[in-house]
């Protein structure tokens, strides 16, 4: 990408009026939930969520859906956390708050498909981190959740161009970033970066958003970028991709990202990747169900 293209993207993203503001509760919520998985100030979570009635209501509706099999729907966010567990509520809250930033009518990409992949990737990132003694699971979760926000920017700022790229990806069964590069000359990595800068996200998250398809460029947060890159690939191979068949062979262990991650986390060597893959499948159903509850009926599965 030339410097002038980068400048154009930045320009358009900075000044366009339809560009969403970061949902008010998102960052504080993420910070609160990310600090320590063991000890969370429940009241503060409840207080934050209550600032936004829409999010609170949607969260309760999802928590009370048949998906979680509660005898009766929770009456408060606190009750939801206590009965469903913090992690599930966290997922529901983040999805609802981020989902709100992007009005459904503006999606070129199916919103449910997008969120399935983002939440799927967040979940895989966290599960992956759990296999590695010194990885930060909550950081990885956030990185996975946000890695593709550039697609949301594309929908809003470059809807026509992006629709063409999407169509080409589906038709030729090629990865979406390749189709973007071929039709638009840039990818969601660049547009995502512009939004991440606007939102003033943490540096390592910005690196993930900007470099998860080309790890070598990532500077400080290389292992995190590598982890998201591998989780992203795995998602796309296990029914959490972009809703079309990717004619793609993925050799994770031969991927440069694997070596980068291995340098930081020696215990990666002991991970049974096949069993890990099978374990992920267990969570796929739940993610499909959760996303259809938030965004309405899920489109046809690809596998």
């Amino acid at each position: 990408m030339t410097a002038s293209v980068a400048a154009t993207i930045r320009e358009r993203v900075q000044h366009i009026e339809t560009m969403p503001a970061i949902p008010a509760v998102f960052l504080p919520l993420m910070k609160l939930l990310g600090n320590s998985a063991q000890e969370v100030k429940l009241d503060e979570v409840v207080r934050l969520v209550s600032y936004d009635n829409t999010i609170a209501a949607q969260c309760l509706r999802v928590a009370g859906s048949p998906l979680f099999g509660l005898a009766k729907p929770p009456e408060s966010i606190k009750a939801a956390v206590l009965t469903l567990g913090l992690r599930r509520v966290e997922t529901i809250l983040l999805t609802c708050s981020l989902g709100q930033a992007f009005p459904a009518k503006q999606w070129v990409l199916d919103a449910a498909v997008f969120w399935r992949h983002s939440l799927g990737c967040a979940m895989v990132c966290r599960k992956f981190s759990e296999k590695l003694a010194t990885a930060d699971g909550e950081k990885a979760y956030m990185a996975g959740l946000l890695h593709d926000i550039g697609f949301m920017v594309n929908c809003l700022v470059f809807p026509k161009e992006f629709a063409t790229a999407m169509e080409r990806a589906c038709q030729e069964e090629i990865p979406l970033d390749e189709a973007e590069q071929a039709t638009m000359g840039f990818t969601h990595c660049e547009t995502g970066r512009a939004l991440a800068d606007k939102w003033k996200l943490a540096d390592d998250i910005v690196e993930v958003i900007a470099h998860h398809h080309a790890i070598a460029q990532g500077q400080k947060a290389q292992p995190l970028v590598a982890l998201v890159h591998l989780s992203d690939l795995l998602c796309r191979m296990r029914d959490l991709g972009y809703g079309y068949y990717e004619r793609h062979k993925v050799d994770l262990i031969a991927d440069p990202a694997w070596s980068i991650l291995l340098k930081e986390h020696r215990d990666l060597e002991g991970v049974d990747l096949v069993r890990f893959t099978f374990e992920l499948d267990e969570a796929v159903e739940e993610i499909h169900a959760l996303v259809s509850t938030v965004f309405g009926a899920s489109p046809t599965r690809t596998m």
Partner: protein
Amino acid sequence: MTIVIQPATPPLAPTKSGETVDPVYRQIRDLVYKVSGIYKAEEKLYLLADGCGRRMKQLGARNPREYWDQLTAQPGRDGELRQLLNEITIGETCLFRSQPQLDALRKVILPEIVAEKTKQITKTLRIWSAGCSTGEESYTLAMNMLEENERLLKGWTVEILATDLNDRSIETAKAGIYGDYALRSTTDYFKRKYFSTVDEKRLEVRPDVKKLITFSRLNLQDDSKMLFMKGMDLVFCCNVLIYFDGASKTKVINHFFSNLNFGGYFFLGTSESLMKLNDQFHLVHFPGTIAYWKPSLKSGKL
């Protein structure tokens, strides 16, 4: 107020009817994986529980915990595990068992192999169904290769070798006659194109499909015979190695590696793992399925 919240533990796995599964089944699941490489995912735990249930009835075990003891205590341990493996893999023999596997084969693997071998004078594709049982997998492969006859495989010869230890299975396989249950995943398109009607309930594979396949008896543990199996592009060995002990498993897998051409692929059953028994194969993912790849010489990944 600060509340210490334990990380959410997964709820008990629901059965099909919505009841919960005894946690001991997770222990059994882990044991089965360790010994055989078969992994029953959380949402399939009810299948494992069903299989254990049938074994418990046979043995007169009153509860899963009692069955666990029988499954782990000598002297009957190995035999019982084998019985259980039979139970939990029994439903897996049908035609078109894994569509993601067939998609990977036709959309990614075949184009790759054809491109790799296209400079060779004899354009032959060799496939081996090792442990073919009653032939469902072999015929599925044959029909899918015939579908590519006018496209990717135009001008190619396809040879499918199907072997099994059991003579009776081979006879059934040769006959190629299947009922509703075996055909439950076969589409009308394939039924019309590649089968003829035997009677109300059964269809028979047509001769043009049959002639692609050579069925024969082979013991995978017979080293001298295994050495002769050469030049394979694809090897399928579904739910067979699960019955082997670690040392035999390693030996057979090493044979498969040398039986394959460079750039060839090895497939296990859909919920089966090689469990790092061979470090020469590359584990590769395709949409919805995994396989083991013997890197091509060109790839520089050997």
